[in-house]
């Protein structure tokens, strides 16, 4: 079994695990969190397999999409944190989403959904570029 074959197998399994974690119907913050968990493993595996992308001068399609997906992933994390900011969240407590009666709820939910959709599209693009 060659190194490249193993790397592709690993990437495929990581993507499958990500999908498995997504199957259950969940509140948006859990969906976002699980996509972020799977995305973290996926992106780190691609980054490890392509260290040449660490050079800013390398502008291959794969490196470009990898940078965009990594930035989108971090935006998803930020949006998730913003959505969860309530109660004792900033003091180390669990996620505390805003009440649906709170005027800030829809704004935070829309931003989280947009970040989620954006990341998922870029992850899909990255998978396409990696084949």
């Amino acid at each position, binding site marked *: *079994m060659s190194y490249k074959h193993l790397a592709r197998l690993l990437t495929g*399994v990581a993507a499958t*695990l990500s999908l498995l974690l997504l199957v259950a119907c969940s509140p948006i913050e859990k969906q976002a*969190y699980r996509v972020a968990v799977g995305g973290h493993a996926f992106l780190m595996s691609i980054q490890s397999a392509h260290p040449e992308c660490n050079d800013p001068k390398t502008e291959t399609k794969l490196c470009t999409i990898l*940078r965009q997906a990594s930035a989108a992933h971090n935006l998803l*994390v930020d949006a998730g944190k*913003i959505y969860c900011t309530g109660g004792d969240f*900033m003091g180390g*407590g669990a*996620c505390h989403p805003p009440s649906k009666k709170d005027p800030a709820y829809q704004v935070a939910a829309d931003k989280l959904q947009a970040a989620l959709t954006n990341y998922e599209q870029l992850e899909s693009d990255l998978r396409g570029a990696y084949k």
Partner: protein
Amino acid sequence: MSTNDTSALAGALSPESVLIGLAFNLGSLLVSHLTHAKAPQEIIDAAQKVVTDIEAHAQDTMTAAQWDALRVPIPGQAPDAPAPAIGGGS
């Protein structure tokens, strides 16, 4: 990781817990397969990382620290700091 760990992950028997348990088992199986196949250590380490991530986040209370731990470096850029906390959106 042990069978007990796996059982604990699926112990709650909610659909989500069962799925996480399944993902954990598949990941563990992959690590075992790669080890027996004498795969390069970095591949085994990457697979183990996936399993560890699943295990670590199985009980996802989604604290700020857990969210922050998911941030990734952006290749070709200096590491960025976590965004400042913003209460309730803007």
